């Protein structure tokens, strides 16, 4: 935990902005640079900054490990599940054309869901790895 008041105040101001920017990168990835990978890392870095300044116990209070551990698998299952939905509609695995009447709309839905799955898994894995390392110190 860091006692420096400047760092504490500034990080408190910045963390919401980091999380918001991560969500922007996640959902705006279709139009600008970015996507699930970057958004997941950014989202995790918000929590990692919080843990570095206020201690891991503070993070455990906000978002305990039992939230993150299932999320590690949830994102990957979402990705795999989208592929199986295409199979159910008689299309090849991960062919997003099957997800809607219009192929283009289907592609949009598919890319959105897949990127969401990537973001969830990447963020959860980064936070879990960080907390596992930080937990060894105490």
């Amino acid at each position, binding site marked *: 935990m860091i006692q420096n008041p400047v760092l504490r105040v500034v990080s408190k101001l910045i963390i919401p902005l980091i999380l918001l920017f991560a969500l922007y*990168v996640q959902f705006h*990835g*279709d*139009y*600008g*640079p*970015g*996507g699930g*990978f*970057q958004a997941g*890392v*950014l989202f*995790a*870095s918000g929590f*990692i900054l919080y843990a*570095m300044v206020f201690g*891991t116990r503070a993070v*455990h209070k906000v978002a*305990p*490990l*039992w939230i993150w*551990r299932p999320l*590690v*698998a949830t*994102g*990957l299952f979402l*990705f*795999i599940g989208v*592929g199986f939905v295409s199979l159910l509609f008689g299309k090849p*695995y*991960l062919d*997003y054309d099957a997800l809607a009447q219009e*192929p*283009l709309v289907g*592609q*949009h839905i*598919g*890319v959105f869901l*897949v*990127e969401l*799955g*990537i973001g969830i*898994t*990447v963020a*959860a*894995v*980064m936070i*879990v*790895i*960080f*907390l*596992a*390392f*930080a*937990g*060894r*110190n*105490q």
Partner: protein
Amino acid sequence: MTELLNVVLLGFLALTALAAIRLRDLFAVVMMFSIFSLLSASLFVVMGAVDVAFTEAAVGAGVSTVLMLETLSLTVRRERPPAHRKLLPLLVVTVTGAALIYGTFDMPKFGDPNAPIHHHVVTRYIEASPQEIGIPNVVTEVLASYRGFDTLGELAVIFTAGVGVMALLGTRSRRRKENRR
């Protein structure tokens, strides 16, 4: 202007790499690695690869630095001076480096429109993707749709890394319960 930027960035890149080799304080070395990643991210921006630059800045300069610092806090901060002689490693590195540079002579010039990379599937992606997928960012289209299997594999790798760390290092909540017992 771009040439100047490239020279400055590559110069700093070489300097940080040399500093990382020379320094014995591992904390400073980790910082050098972080600066190295940030400089490469800037180079990617100059080359127009913003998506790659974004990833490099977030993962290379950000998260991996934090993880290396975490690892440092578990071990010692100073590197021991090497006991063996430096001549053989230097020779190996020089020969390997020379071979790699010799290999680049056959590569197409940077930005060459006739380079094979611009002619394989890239033209098809650029021409057909507005009708097939209709998302403005081609990188996202290729990553999530055309090469969905690749990305699924990458995500599985990250998932495996997370599960591996959880299995090896354990997590704090479990240890707390054990302490209570």
